[in-house]
């Protein structure tokens, strides 16, 4: 009872608020016509809900009577049963329905004040019931009601009381019903008696609640059920106190983004990735399975002291910075540890559009580069197979008379342009990739094109003339060209090997054509700066053929010609008997003999410091290959290239003109088109023909005559 009282009070608080206005309106205007009108629509709406209920309620209320504490014999107002019965019948709807049903009793009495509309039956009924309840139950609650009516003044007290009692009665009824529910029979009976009506009522209520708001697109039904779900899930303390907040939370939850269940795994951050790969560099220990001695042997020669050269280059204002240089050094160490390297050098860095290349120049120990040979064999075999396959397919097709010129064979690894093997990687710590050895054709074409590197070795080179290979081949060709042009050393640092001596040029494939001069005493730095003749090239010039060593294509051709007699003559006609041998400058030629680039010196020498010339170093900057540098402190020297990998040209690049169109067949009179004869010519021709015919006829006639004559004779 007390619980109900407390809830009652809350209701009371609401009811006066609702009721207040109508009451006030009545007192002020004293015209009830307006108020009922306004309330009637509500009634009309709720009509189906409320009006049928009295009938259904009657059995129920009668059943409830005995149990009710002070229930009057008179039938309960129609609204009661629905709240009472529904909790039992339909769990959820019940919880939702009470508000409207609670409202109706509130509204109806308001709309129809008892004194004025006493004549009306329905109002009578309704009026009467409250009064009954007043008398019956009011006593229990008088105390709580009394103070409030006071606010409205004595006149209103009765009405107020009646109102409150009505409400109170509702709750009593609820209690009754709950107590009834113990027995269950009345409730079930109620359901049985009018299931369809109850259902329609419930469905109507539900339909109303399900109406979506035009503003938010939500509906109250879902909202309340969500709220209750939330409350029941979380079971907060004093749920009733925070119900507003819960409602708010539930509404706000609509705006929080629902995370997709299919989420990407955390991507490996590039920073982390590079750190992980470079971590391996810093953790390099002793490699397993390598003999200690062997390792020592490797360590002795192969690894270059990159940091020392970087120190000198930094004085020249060239370099990659200590941090990156050290990482490169570690990467080089990794390279030398994992490959049988005789000698290794940091060649430089080539910039690309997307990534850059770090290039290492490597010389394998003798007999250890078989791997490459095998690869080549495979490649050649493949080539043969391809050609065979092509032959089979093209049997039926007419054969082209064009015979491609004999490709200039590439130089063996360890000689000429392929003296060194080059490894590249995009960043220190990433795997080193070996560049394929260069072919003369690639060098020849590379000279004719000018393309940026992308940073991906397998990128195609789209150019004219078409480049035979992808970016790795182009990169290798450019490296070969740069090396040949810019690798210089102080005069006397290298000397020709004793065996070959000055015949170096003629000896083909002479490995180790030069060697370090043990007696080299060093040059003075100022001499190195002042005279370029104190610097020499120690890498071989690449001939325009694309090789360092001249290859004469003719002798081989002759051999082939013997096999194919038919083509022999033609070829002899086409090709000159003797091709002038290309001769490049010999090894260790002073750079002072380098060709000028249109009145531009190919090298710019400089002293690194003008303030302290005592300890300065000589620095040479290549103007032919911007980005190529060399330094020497008199005894030591180093070459470095950092740039885009392009040769300098004062003129703008112009792609070569396509070659002239080949002649398809020899031009002879039978295929040359003649001019149409003019009219005069035709007439003359006709006249001539006619003349001939006439002559012939005359002759014939003469002969005939003769014959005739003969016969005659």
């Amino acid at each position: 009872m007390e619980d109900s009282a407390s809830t009652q009070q809350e209701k009371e608080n609401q009811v006066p608020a609702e009721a207040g206005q109508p009451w006030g309106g009545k007192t002020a205007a004293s015209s009830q016509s307006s108020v009922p009108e306004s309330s009637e629509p509500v009634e009309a709406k709720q009509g189906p809900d409320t009006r049928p209920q009295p009938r259904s309620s009657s059995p129920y209320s009668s059943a409830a009577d005995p149990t009710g504490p002070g229930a009057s014999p008179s039938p309960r107002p129609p609204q009661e049963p629905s709240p009472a019965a529904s909790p039992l019948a339909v769990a959820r709807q019940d919880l939702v329905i009470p508000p409207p049903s609670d409202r109706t009793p509130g509204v109806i009495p308001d709309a129809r004040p008892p004194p004025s509309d006493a004549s009306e039956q329905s109002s009578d009924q309704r009026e009467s019931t409250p009064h009954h309840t007043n008398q019956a139950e009011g006593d229990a609650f008088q105390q709580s009601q009394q103070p409030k009516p006071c606010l409205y003044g004595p006149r209103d007290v009765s009405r107020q009381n009646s109102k409150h009692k009505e409400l109170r009665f509702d709750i009593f009824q609820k209690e009754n019903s709950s107590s009834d529910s113990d027995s269950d029979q009345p409730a079930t009976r109620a359901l049985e008696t009018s299931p369809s009506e109850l259902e329609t009522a419930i469905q109507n209520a539900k339909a109303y609640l399900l109406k979506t708001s035009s503003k938010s697109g939500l509906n109250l039904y879902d909202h309340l059920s969500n709220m209750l779900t939330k409350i029941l899930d979380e079971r907060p303390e004093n749920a009733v106190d925070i119900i507003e907040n819960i409602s708010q939370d539930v509404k706000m939850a609509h705006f929080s983004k629902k995370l997709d269940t299919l989420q990407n795994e955390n991507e490996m951050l590039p920073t982390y990735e590079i750190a992980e790969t470079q971590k391996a560099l810093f953790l390099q220990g002793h490699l397993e399975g390598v003999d200690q001695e062997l390792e020592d042997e490797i360590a002795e020669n192969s690894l270059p002291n990159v940091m020392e050269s970087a120190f000198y280059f930094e004085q020249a204002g060239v370099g990659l910075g200590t941090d990156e240089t050290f990482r490169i050094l570690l990467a080089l160490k990794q390279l030398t540890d994992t490959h049988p390297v005789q000698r290794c050098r940091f060649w430089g860095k080539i910039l690309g559009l997307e990534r850059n290349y770090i290039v290492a120049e490597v010389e394998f120990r003798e007999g250890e580069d078989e791997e490459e040979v095998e690869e080549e064999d495979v490649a050649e075999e493949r080539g043969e197979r391809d050609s065979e396959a092509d032959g089979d397919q093209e049997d039926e097709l007419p054969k082209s008379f064009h015979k491609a010129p004999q490709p200039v064979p590439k130089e063996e690894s360890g000689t000429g342009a392929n003296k060194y093997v080059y490894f590249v990687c995009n960043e220190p710590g990433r795997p080193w990739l070996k560049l394929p050895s260069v072919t003369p054709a690639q060098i020849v074409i590379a000279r004719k094109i000018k393309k940026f590197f992308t940073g991906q070795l397998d990128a195609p080179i789209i150019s004219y003339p078409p480049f035979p290979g992808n970016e790795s081949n182009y990169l290798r060709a450019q490296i070969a060209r740069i090396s040949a042009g810019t690798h210089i050393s102080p005069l006397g640092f290298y000397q020709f090997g004793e065996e070959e001596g000055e015949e170096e040029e003629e000896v083909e494939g002479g490995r180790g054509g030069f060697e370090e001069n043990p007696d080299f005493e060093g040059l003075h730095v100022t001499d190195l700066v002042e005279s370029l003749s104190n610097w020499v090239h120690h890498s071989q010039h690449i001939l325009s053929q694309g090789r360092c060593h001249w290859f004469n294509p003719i002798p081989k051709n002759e051999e082939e010609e013997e096999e194919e007699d038919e083509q022999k003559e033609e070829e002899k006609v086409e090709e000159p008997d003797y091709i002038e041998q290309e001769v490049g400058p010999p090894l260790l030629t002073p750079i002072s003999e380098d060709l000028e680039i249109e009145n531009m010196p190919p090298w710019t020498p400089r002293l690194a410091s003008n303030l302290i010339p005592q300890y300065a170093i000589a620095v040479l900057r290549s103007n032919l290959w911007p980005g190529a540098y060399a330094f020497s402190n008199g005894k030591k020297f180093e070459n470095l290239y950092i740039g885009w990998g392009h040769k300098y040209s004062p003129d703008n690049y112009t792609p070569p003109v396509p070659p002239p169109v080949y002649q398809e067949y020899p031009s002879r009179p039978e295929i040359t088109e003649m001019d149409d004869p003019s009219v005069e010519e035709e007439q003359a021709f006709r006249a001539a023909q006619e003349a001939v015919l006439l002559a012939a006829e005359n002759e014939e006639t003469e002969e005939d005559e003769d014959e005739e004559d003969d016969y005659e004779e």
Partner: protein
Amino acid sequence: MGSGKATTSTELGWDLWPHTVVWRGHAGAVTTEDLQSLTPGRNWEGPESARAWASAEERWAAGGRRPAAICILGLVGDHFISQGMREDQLAPRQTLYSLNCMEWSLLPPATEEMEVRTSVVKGRFMGDPSHEYEHTELQETNEGEKLLEEVVVQIKEETRLVSIIDQIDKAVAIIPRGALFRTPFGPTHVNRVFEGLSLSEAKKLSSYFHFREPVELKNKTLLEKADLDPSLDFMDSLEHDIPKGSWSIQMERGNALVVLRSLLWPGLTFYHAPRTKNYGSIYVGTGEKNMDLPFML
């Protein structure tokens, strides 16, 4: 060499903001060595000259927060160029040049006529401002007869230098979006709340602007300009540079640094550390435009 002209910044009327040189002003983020590693070839004349250069710049203590430095490699010597900006970042700059980073001389402002006149000169700089290039051109004399006569025109390297610097500035001087803002009254100021580009923005060319008065922006349609913020997007972005692909954009050190290299003016390197206000650029090159670019892409 009028080195006396550039003694103090007050004489020149530059504001005295905290001085920044590329490799010193951004201590902690990008060091000398970093830039060195980013710039192909040499950056400056070794530590000695770098220090001298920096000290010289300190001496005249000019410049806004935009670090601008140019070094043009000549055959004999190199030109070092340092620029100072007024508070309005887009106002004409004062340009000083030097051969040894100690004695600085003021360069005259570039004119269009200068550009036309020097455009005939090809080849490398010598490194001597008084060097005169000779150029023979055919000029018409005797209007009626149209006789062509060879006239030798002499062009001073200093003039060419001014013109080239102006071209470089206009073509490839860039800043990240948001580093500068335009006030409603016109002048452009350094945005002190610029906190750097985000990582995804830093990878896009559209986040970088040409550091010059807009040219292309005026030709854009209203629709294209609809999304632009007039206080930030008041310059041309690199996105529509011609030819397409005239910039190489690379992430270095695992996305810790973004580096833009101009392919049209090889030698210009711009760096920006994403999510920091550190950015800057330097030009170290031969002072020649890459006319072969369309063939090379």
